[in-house]
């Protein structure tokens, strides 16, 4: 089933002097069951794009298909709740959404809203809190007295507990320490591989794109200008140059080797295969 945008445009504050067209005729078809990284410079429209997926924003023009649902311009969406159960969206700064007295209650909030039995909700919520790396001692603490990064983990657990089929993450690890962000990214990969969840991640971190994604979608000035696989993306120097993206370290190493006259054959996007190739080339 498709997750696709057809000629989707979105204008903020339409018909006022402050009108701003943040999306301009976007066409894109996200592959189900994959991890897609959405990249693009600040203000290019990534957040606007992903907020269409669970109908937080409705297109000003065009059409969106999410699984078996269609969202069209100027037509109210029926049964929003079931759509939002299918598409879980973690916000760019999710730490602002916490409000319950205890962390456990806050994580349960989503599942309970979607009609899951209290006992079951508590069970899932505890499970998700452990998954994001918060142990039992946190369950009964107030979410308001956590650090920014811990709040973010709670917020992510709150969406995971809804158990959506499509998981949309808007810069989920920005501001987390390297260990936590690595663990978090690995968790997303695990959810994808084990439970076959479709995952869309907005990120500025090229190392993450390289290490964890399958596909790459590039947003620029309100349009999707590229949708390629990760390998194509990083093998193509032109794209990297054109987008002024500082490539990940491995790509840099390859470029340096090339400059020194050592040309490697084939694709090497992880450390192991790169070292193997270098060993082969030099010996």
């Amino acid at each position, binding site marked *: 089933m498709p997750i696709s945008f057809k000629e989707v445009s979105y204008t*903020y*504050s*339409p018909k*006022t*002097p402050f009108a701003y067209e943040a999306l301009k005729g976007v066409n894109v078809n996200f592959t189900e069951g994959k991890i897609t990284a959405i990249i693009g410079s600040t203000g290019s429209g990534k957040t606007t794009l992903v*907020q269409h997926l*669970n109908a*937080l924003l409705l297109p000003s023009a065009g059409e969106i298909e999410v699984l078996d649902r269609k969202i069209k311009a100027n037509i109210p969406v029926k049964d*929003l*709740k079931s759509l*939002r*159960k299918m598409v*879980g*969206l973690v*916000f760019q*700064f*999710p730490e*602002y*959404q*916490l*409000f319950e007295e205890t962390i456990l209650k806050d994580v349960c*909030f*989503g599942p309970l*809203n*979607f009609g899951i039995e209290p006992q079951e909700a508590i069970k899932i919520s505890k499970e998700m809190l452990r998954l994001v790396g918060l142990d039992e001692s946190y369950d009964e603490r107030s979410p*308001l007295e956590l650090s920014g990064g811990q709040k973010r983990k709670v917020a992510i657990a*709150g*969406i995971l507990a*809804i158990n959506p089929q499509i998981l949309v993450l808007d810069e989920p690890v920005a501001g987390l320490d390297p260990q936590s962000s690595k663990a978090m990214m690995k968790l997303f990969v695990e959810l994808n591989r084990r439970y076959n969840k479709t995952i869309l991640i907005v990120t500025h971190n090229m190392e993450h794109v390289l290490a964890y994604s399958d596909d790459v979608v590039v947003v620029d000035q309100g349009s999707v200008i590229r949708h390629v696989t990760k390998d194509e993306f990083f093998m193509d120097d032109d794209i990297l140059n054109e987008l002024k993206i500082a490539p990940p370290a491995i790509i840099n190493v390859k470029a340096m080797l090339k400059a020194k006259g050592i040309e490697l054959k084939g694709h090497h996007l992880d450390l192991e295969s790169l070292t193997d190739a270098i060993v082969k080339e030099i010996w």
Partner: protein
Amino acid sequence: MDSIALGRYIPGTTLIHRLDPRIKILSMLFLLIAIFIPAGFYGYLVITIVSLLALSLAKLRIGFVFKALRPIMIMMIMLMVINVLVVKTGYVIITFLGFEIYSGAIYQTLYIFIRLVLMIVITTILTATTKPLELTLGIEDLLAPFVRFKVPAHEIAMMISIAIRFIPTLIEETQRIMKAQASRGVDLKEGKFKEKIAAILSLIVPLFVSSFQRAEDLANAMEARGYVPDAKRTRYKQLHVDTKDRIILLFVILILVGLIKIAIFI
């Protein structure tokens, strides 16, 4: 939320936009006083013409003004209903569902309606053509003479300008939290009473938390930069009154005086 027109600044470079904010505030005050002078039908006609003139000079669309009026329509309708039911002067015009509606009630209601509309139109012209910051500078200056009576003019102005500054931020914040909670299955429109309460709480609590956080951050930032409320401060933006300001003020004062004259004669 995007459609809020009441109190919104519309950028422009028209004559009205360029007037000194103090002059604009004074003119508005005089016109508001003029509305309450019982100068009868002609009085309101004069003020209406002046307002329309100012609107067209400021290049504001009538539609914008109607939008500004919309939020208070309900209040007006309530006022009118109460008036029609309570006032019993003049003669009975019609009997409606057993209620006798008097001519006095109709007049009274019309007067209230016209006054309210004019008041809103005039204040809208002020707020739509004056940057909030200029507005507070103007208020501060106009309050300056009262400082010797212990009116904290500067503090009031600072409080107003901070409040104004954070209105858009608060709206944005509210929208963001609404979206975040909607993603977690909150539905503000449907659901049982208990669910609605929970939905509103899920909005209010984060809003309060972040507002307090923001207030604290702002206070710290201000202190870190050496802000002392009652210290004497210089200003980057200097206001000055020139010929066009004087003419406008004179014009408004003439209207006020004229209306008082009319009121005395009738």
